[in-house]
């Protein structure tokens, strides 16, 4: 049973509280340029995964916590979680990404809460515009 800490809301739990979403950083050709999608690129996007014996970047969902998807670097051999991070670097710099140490209270306040999410006026502040995934 993996012990996972969400990098966004810092909820701690095991696999039951989170959902695995497969390999991260799979590029969807249609998102990049819908006019230039080749069969080969589309096929690779749908079906080809690296499946390494060792560290791999994965998508995980904080299902019973903040409902955010984040990236986890995990060793498929030892099952060690090497690193977890959120998609946004801006968000990442606000909250300290350290599983081991307790998170200082002032950092927790800065993370988006569900009440902020539902208010559209708040949104541009917490979500940077037009940032693509950090690879």
């Amino acid at each position, binding site marked *: 049973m993996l012990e996972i800490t969400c990098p966004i809301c810092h909820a701690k739990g095991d696999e039951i509280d989170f959902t695995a979403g497969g390999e991260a950083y799979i590029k969807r050709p249609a*998102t990049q340029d819908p006019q230039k999608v080749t069969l080969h690129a589309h096929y690779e996007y749908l079906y080809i995964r690296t499946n390494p014996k060792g560290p791999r970047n994965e998508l995980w969902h904080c299902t019973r916590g903040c409902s955010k998807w984040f990236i986890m670097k995990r060793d498929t051999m030892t099952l060690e979680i090497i690193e977890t991070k959120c998609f946004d670097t801006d968000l990442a710099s606000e909250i300290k990404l350290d599983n081991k140490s307790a998170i200082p209270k002032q950092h927790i306040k800065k993370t988006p809460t569900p009440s902020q999410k539902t208010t559209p006026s708040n949104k541009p502040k917490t979500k940077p515009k037009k940032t693509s995934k950090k690879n």
Partner: protein
Amino acid sequence: MSAKPYRLHSNLSSDLCGTHVNRNKVCNFTFDGKNYTGFEGDTLASALFANGVRVVGRSFKYHRPRGVLCLGSEEPNALVEVGEKGTHSPNLRATEVNLYDGMVARSQNRWPSVDFDIGHVNDFLSPLFPAGFYYKTFMWPASLWMHYEHIIRRAAGLGTAPTTQDSAFYEHFHQHCDLLVIGGGVAGLVSAYAAAKSGSHVILVDEQAQLGGCSDYFNAQIDDLDHNLWIKMIISELRTLSNCTVLTNTTAVGLYMHRFALLNQIVSHTHQAEGFSPKARLWKVRAKNIILATGALERPLSFANNDRPGVMLSSALRGYLRRYDVVAGQAGAIFTNNDNAYETAFILKEAGVNIKAVIDLRKQIPHVLRKRAESLNIEVFSGYAIVDVKTVSMGKKIDHISIARILQSGRISQLSSLNVDFVGMSGGFNPAVHLFCHVGGKVQFDKKINSFKPKNDIPHITSVGACNGVFSLNNIIKEAFNTGENVAMQASLYKKVTLKKPKKIEASTNSTLAKQWFIPSIRKYNDGAKHFLDFQNDVTIRDIELAVREGYESVEHTKRYTTMGMATDQGKIGNINALGILADSLDIDIEKSLTTTFRPPFTPLPFGTIAGTKAKTLFQAIRQTDIAHWHEKNTIDFEPVGQWRRPYTYRQAHQSRFDSIQEEVKNVRENVGLLDASTLGKIDIKGPDAVTFLNRIYSNSFSNLKVGRCRYGLMLNDNGFIIDDGVTAKLADNHYIVHTTSGGADSIAAMMEFWLQTEWRDLRVFITPVTDQYAQIVIAGPKSRDVLNACSSDIRFGADDFAYMDVKQGHLNGVPARVYRISFSGELSYEIAVPAAYGLSLWNTLLECGRSYDIKPYGTEALHILRAEKGYIVVGDETDGTVIPKDVGLGSMVSKKKPDFIGKHSLLLMDDLNRDNRKQLVGLFTEDPNEVLPDGVHAVNEVKKAPPMKMIGHVTSSYFSPTLKRSIAMALIENGRKRMGERIAFPFDDKIVHARIVDHIFYDKKGERQNV
């Protein structure tokens, strides 16, 4: 005095003996129907010994009579059922079952009785039952397997499953701690003590009822006092510490990744429910550090007939005497390759038990041992071995043993016999590395102990004491103190304290042991003289050798071919001996051989414990709409839809299901019907980019949808296959409500989040699942408008004011309501959504207003017939994850203009999705209008006498339509739309049903009825 023949009289034994039993409290119990008595504190095994019961079970394959071999959870033979037949617990180890007054227990794997077992004939026929016997015999012909299997299942196998529902309950505990210590022997106790004293939050578990491990059956001195006094001091100190949880009768059954442990705590010892106390409790512990102090298991010696009742592990003999004051027989001998077994001889002899001899494989024996044996009048045969065990009464009682000198050449000489009725054997000790291996820990061979010990290569998991290959008391205590303190230093609440460490430890030391896996026999090898390795699975040396001869050289292959180390035993008793024999047979060094994989659980875990409270009504939560209680009063017929229970049809017990459904459909077509559609998935979508998002999620376009209008949408995955459908309404600019299927609501909302958070992070859209926030009621039928007009409302329902596919917001009976004019039945129909708590009041209002219009509720089956008559698809019926829009006649729902949507590029690029002969949705009319095809039956091109026949498609939905007064079906048929009018066949076992392919829209093809 009522002293039992095998229970020592308390006056004769010393204070150290019988420590576990309370002689003032007698427990009556039955075993295989016979009445016996024991004492409080006894295990079932010790109580049986006290009553002179030797045979407690039959072996797995040969049905040989078997007695108790061990003292603890490693017992392979004495598997028993406890409890009244039907509610009993099977496969319990008698050595772990604590006796209680009124216990009912039975032996297993015997027929008709444990004393006389017909299966015993297998023992004499054993040349016919070699390893891999089942594989070889039953390979051919395959058709007879069903026949063989029946016989094998009866002949082989462990206990029987209980037949009635378990009346007890179980629970789960979740716990975090700084340190989990597994094993309450000296090593575990000292580690826990050192860490807990230093401030760590510690959990200490032990599978036995009392702490101390095996310390009560060896002799040692700590600071000039009996070591047990010092251990008692440690235990009582631990019990006073609030930061240390001590769990006894609790087995660590499995160790998993990231220091997660499963502990099975037995709470009720009567194997019954006891008031509000659970029978067992499963602890799920996440520890920052784990110390394994699981000790070691004694190895048997592989001599001829070493499985006879009365042959036991040497340490077990000692344990039974010290704990329960019982002995296995009247006169005994000890067979050993090491020093430790001498302790057994001395302790037993000093307690007045007749120990005739110690037979030692070694030629060199430490002088002290020899001298002490002489003084106690125990004969020592060094360089000797037991070469056979002779029994009387069909193998149930030892008559005498044959011993002989083992020469350098491997030959034997100077044969003599000893009249004994029990034997204690010791082949050394194996560190119990099972839990360490559960998490992928590696082991290494240690020549000194002739066994495998952990490599300690897993962070935060440390083995201490005997399970780490450390056997001297002095070193164990030193190591445990160090490890405990080191772990505590890592914890956040560390405080430095001075621990009471012992200054002087005196205990016996161990000299070198003899390394001999195979003990020769006087009889022709293996001819009636089986050398058992794995007692539970009846694996002998001969089986391993046969496996090697037949090419199974890898340990893992040999394990599977011979069944060694399987079942509940998991290699506790026989594994190292078997590896030794395997290495011998392959003529390789055992150091180079690998061990088999030890898997959880360490001891069997009952299903009830795994289920915990998630059983019976708590197995799964049932979601209820506001109208659920009304449904329960008005029908007995429900069907599960996701976590919901929806009325299948409204009827009472005396009504026929068929008539009730047909009546409901007719009433919707002729008058008006009411459906609780609150279970329908509802997702609220808001934001400046909402329409862009919908355009990417759905295959059809939402760009030109106006406020106040609804549109049917089709959702695909990126492989191009249909995954959901439903109506989306535009409530305001940048505000939509999306309806999904009842079962798909949660997964669709999650999928939308996935795309927004991972792929389209620039879109400003918010998704809120609101399924539970609204009660939604469908009112359908030609008179539905009249009913709504009869209600008090500020919404005008007339055809000119409220067009088909409009959505209006207003009030109904003073309650805020959203009304959608959409139709899944093909009739004039409205769907009314109100805040969830008003669901029942709206339902009652509509029933009241509709009374003069013959309004009636209808269930899910009528809903399905109504939609099937109209040819509407249901995702999951007409689609199965491989169906694209074109297949079900919805090709026009795929936008050609939109540059991108989920699924678009697969539909464009993938050859398979563009081939001509794909299966297409068609309607079917059976030739006999009363013949209703079952769902899922396959159509064939050409009917032959026997399979194979080429299948061309299958029925997706099939009903008797009251509107058409005949059977109708929808089917996915290869190239179906080009085969209109063709006759296809469905072969059954006893008949062939023919059907004609027709259009899948059976009723009101132009859609005039819903558009009035």
